[in-house]
Every structure is written in C-alpha cells, then in structure tokens.
C-alpha cells in the first residue's frame, strides 16, 4: 500500500466526494485518515494472489421480476418532498457555467 495520505490527496478526494472541506477540516481529516490507513497495513503481509474477492454474502444471480406493469410511487407525493420542484420536475441550479 501507499505511504501515508497527503493533504493534497485529501483535498482531491473531497472534491470527488462533493464535500467542501475548510483548510482546518482537511488538516484534521488528513491526520485521522492517515491513522486509519496505518492500521489497515496489517493486511499487507497476506498473500492474496489466489483468493477470489467476495462481493456479497449470498450467491444470488440476475434477480429479475416478471415484466409487468406495477404501481409506482405517487409523483406528487415524491415531488412534495423535494427541496425544489416545478411543473412535475425537480428544479436544480444551472448545471454548466461555473467551476467548483
């Protein structure tokens, strides 16, 4: 595994996660994540080359239902809970034009 995480990486990851961290928060986050990643080094010694990754506990595959019409959520009830809605749609700020 890599060396301890840098503050630059933390800032980059926070952008990927759409979290805006203040410089103080980024500082604290860097030291806490570094502490955890150090602890996680315990698995570095394991030889895992022949081990199959396990993504789910119970082997179910391609779970499908019959292709029939079923009742869905009530549109108005859903939109009533949105921060902003207009004419049967979610309303959002401009999607293009500013940098993050």
């Amino acid at each position, binding site marked *: *595994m890599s060396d301890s995480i840098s503050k630059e990486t933390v800032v980059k990851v926070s952008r990927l996660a759409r979290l805006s961290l203040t410089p103080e928060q980024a500082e604290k986050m860097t030291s806490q*994540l570094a502490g955890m990643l150090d602890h996680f080094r315990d698995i570095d010694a394991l030889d895992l080359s022949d081990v*199959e990754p*396990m993504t789910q*506990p119970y082997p*179910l595959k391609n779970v499908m239902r019959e292709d029939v019409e079923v009742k869905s959520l009530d549109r108005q009830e859903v939109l009533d809970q*949105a*921060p902003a809605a207009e004419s049967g749609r*979610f309303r959002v700020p401009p999607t*293009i034009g500013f940098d993050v």
Partner: protein
Amino acid sequence: MQKLVEIVAGVTSGSTTATAVVDEHLARIKAREGEIHAFNLVTADQARKDAAKIDEDVKAGKAVGALAGVPIALKDNMCTRGVETTCSSKILQGWKPPYDATVVTKLRNAGAVIVGKTNLDEFAMGSSTENSAFGPTKNPLDISRVPGGSSGGSAAAVSAGFAAASLGSDTGGSIRQPAALCGVVGVKPTYGTVSRYGLVAFASSLDQIGPFTSDVRDAATLLEVISGHDPMDSTSIPQPAASLVSVLDHGVKGMRIGRVTDLPEGCEPDVLARLEAAFDAMRNAGATIVDVKLPSLQYCLTAYYLIAPAEASSNLARYDGVRYGNRVDAADLNAMYAATRESGFGEEVKRRIMLGTYALSAGYFDAYYGKALKVRRLISDDFARAYKDVDAILTPTSPSTAFKFGSKTDNPLAMYLCDVFTIPTNLAGHPAMSVPFGVGTDSMPVGIQVLATTMGEQTMFKVAAELERAS
C-alpha cells in the same frame, strides 16, 4: 418489562386492551424520555388510533395478527410513509418518505402498534449514538453511559420499557452491541432474511434489519413476522421464514459449541469471565465445547472499515439536495452539491465518505477495496471450516460493558474497536445474536454473542434460549 407474547395473549383473549397497553408505554415514555432521548419522534396520536382499531377488531371477533397490540419502536432509518424519517442526520431532517419499508408493512399487517422512531448514530455510523445530529441517547440503566450504537435508541426504548420490542439495523454490530450494553436481546439475522426495502442504505452488502426484545422468545416471535422473501429486495433469499419459536425448548444436548482460541485481543477480563460461565452453562446442559481457530478474524476491522465506507460513499452520493432532504443554495449544480453535503453531514459520516471514496479511487482501488474483498473471503472461509466441527460459536458481544460518554469520541479507531467481535458475521453474512448473561464488575450488563452459519437461525435460537435459562 411486559413481554411481547404476554401482550399478544392478553389483547387477543380480551383480558387487556391494546389501548391500555399502549397507554402504559406512552406513560413510561412521558415519565423518562426527557432524560433518555431514545426517540427522534413519538407517534402517540397515531399509536392510540391504531390500538383502538385493534380493540374494535377483537371486540367484533375479527382475526387479529401475531403482534396484536404490541407497541414497537422503529430505528429512524426505516421508511414510514408520511412520517418523518431522518437517519438522525440534518440532511434528511423533515423528510417524509412516500412509501413504507417492507418491515413496516409486515408489522402493521400483524397488528403491531408503532410508537415512534428511535435515535441512532447518523446514518447508522457509530457505536454510541454520540454521532446523532440530534444529541445522544442515554443508557437507561445508567445515564452517564452510552447505550451503544448505532441502534442505541431502539435498544434503550426496550430497556426502558418504552416499547415491548423494537427494530434496528446491523451493519457491523449495530443491533448486537447496543443490545449487550442495554441488557436486552438483539438479533442480526442471516443476510437476506429480512427485506431491506425501505431501509435507508449504509453498506448494502452488510446491512440487515433485526429485532430488539426483552427475551429470546419475543425475539423469535418478532423475527418470524418480519422474515421472508420480498421481491422488492433483490438480495432477499427466496425461501420462507424459518420456524423459530417451535425450537426454543429443544435444548443443546449433543450440540458442539465453538470456543475461538485466537479471539482478537482487547476484551475486558470481567466480560471474558462471563464468556467462561456461558461455556460452563452449555456444558452443564449437555453440549460439548470444541476449540476452533479463526486466524483471519484479526483482519476483520481492516476489511470492514474499507468495505463499509466504500459502499457508504456510493450509497450516500444520493444526498445531493435534488430529490429529497435539505439543500443549501449555490450558483451552480456542483457548488450546490458540495454546500448541501458540507452542511448536512456530520463529522463521522464525512470521514467515512472520504475513506470510502479514497479506497475506491483510481490508483488505490486494488490496494484497498480490492484487497479488503479478498480478506472478506478469507474470513468467510475460516468460518466455513469452523462450522464443519461445531454447530454454533460463542464470543463476547462487545469487548466491554457500556462506557462513559466522551470516552472514545476523540479517537475514531478506539470507537471502531467496539465492533471487533460483531463485524466478522456481517462480512460472512451469517446470523448472530446477543443474549444478556450477567453483569460486569461495574454492575452493567454483559452480552454473550451466539453465532451460527448461514440460515442457522434455528440452531442459534436453541443455544440462545439455553443461555437465557442459565442466566
């Protein structure tokens, strides 16, 4: 504390009424909720209406369900149509889901009376409820101590007699650890046994709903009601619910009970002493104690704290201020996302989103997430080998009894270590439950954890019932 099965018997026979039962519980809530803070919301008016309806049905001679008149509390990460569901997060404060979780529908159909939504660590991330955006829940047995978490409100509600039973969710121990710390029974069923439809997702390959009750029989009764295949959950096991109440008196004679010889370190001596007493009880009841080795267990924290945050970072991407929850306005979409999430999520949730995003990001994926999935396989294989030699395994549920507020909040890793005995079963997808078994040197309850293999609920309940008889 009034037992669930006694309430059902009383209400259906007419010797008491659902209204009287609900009123008793609401009175206890009124008297003590101020100091305990088990609930984010108490739905007293609706509970009284639901109870009155049950009483009408009983009077009219209509069939009532297996939970008729039982006051039940729900962890506030289970969707209730038209009733606020917050996950104890500011980002969802005020959100009223447009649908009911499958467990909620099942409870209602069985005649249960929902009395409220219980407090939790924000988005179920924590082991003490100290991460709730709305303030912590206190342990009803000693209010200077935590109730455990993340389902701390649900455990406290049963322990304080606010509800005869409650539901929680368990991703790495969030039902079993608070059950142990509050002196009640808590069950994490086999992954896929109880539908996750309408459970707000934390880590989808680990999350499972289960009951809190004051004894093992109540837990079996409630679990039978909420189990079973649900087409709305694609990870739901396509098999009917197992019969559990019927096996409670079978005993453990001839059973092989596993003792883990390489248990992770850090457990308090008074808790280990109770574990030894539990093995003695099993031996006295005719079981054989067999040593088993689970060498990969020492890596469970690493695997879990990479896999769970990775899944969480993906699941929690949906809180973007667009479709539900709260929004902080900004000039463009990306700025709105960031401002909303910055203001809406608490510190621990942000930490886990960061950790998960990092573990999944280009360049680090193989080193962290990919490796963690392989370690998960090793742990699962260890259990598979052990269950060739034993029918069930006993461990402590938590390394210590309930700790004081603030004692672990400065060190995330110290808090994560609370789950060292409960995490392995989530990784493997197995069932496990905590049963109160005596007290520690501080007179606080100790929970013993009973583990069994996939779909091994009947065996697990036989052992749990025997432990309870011996406690």
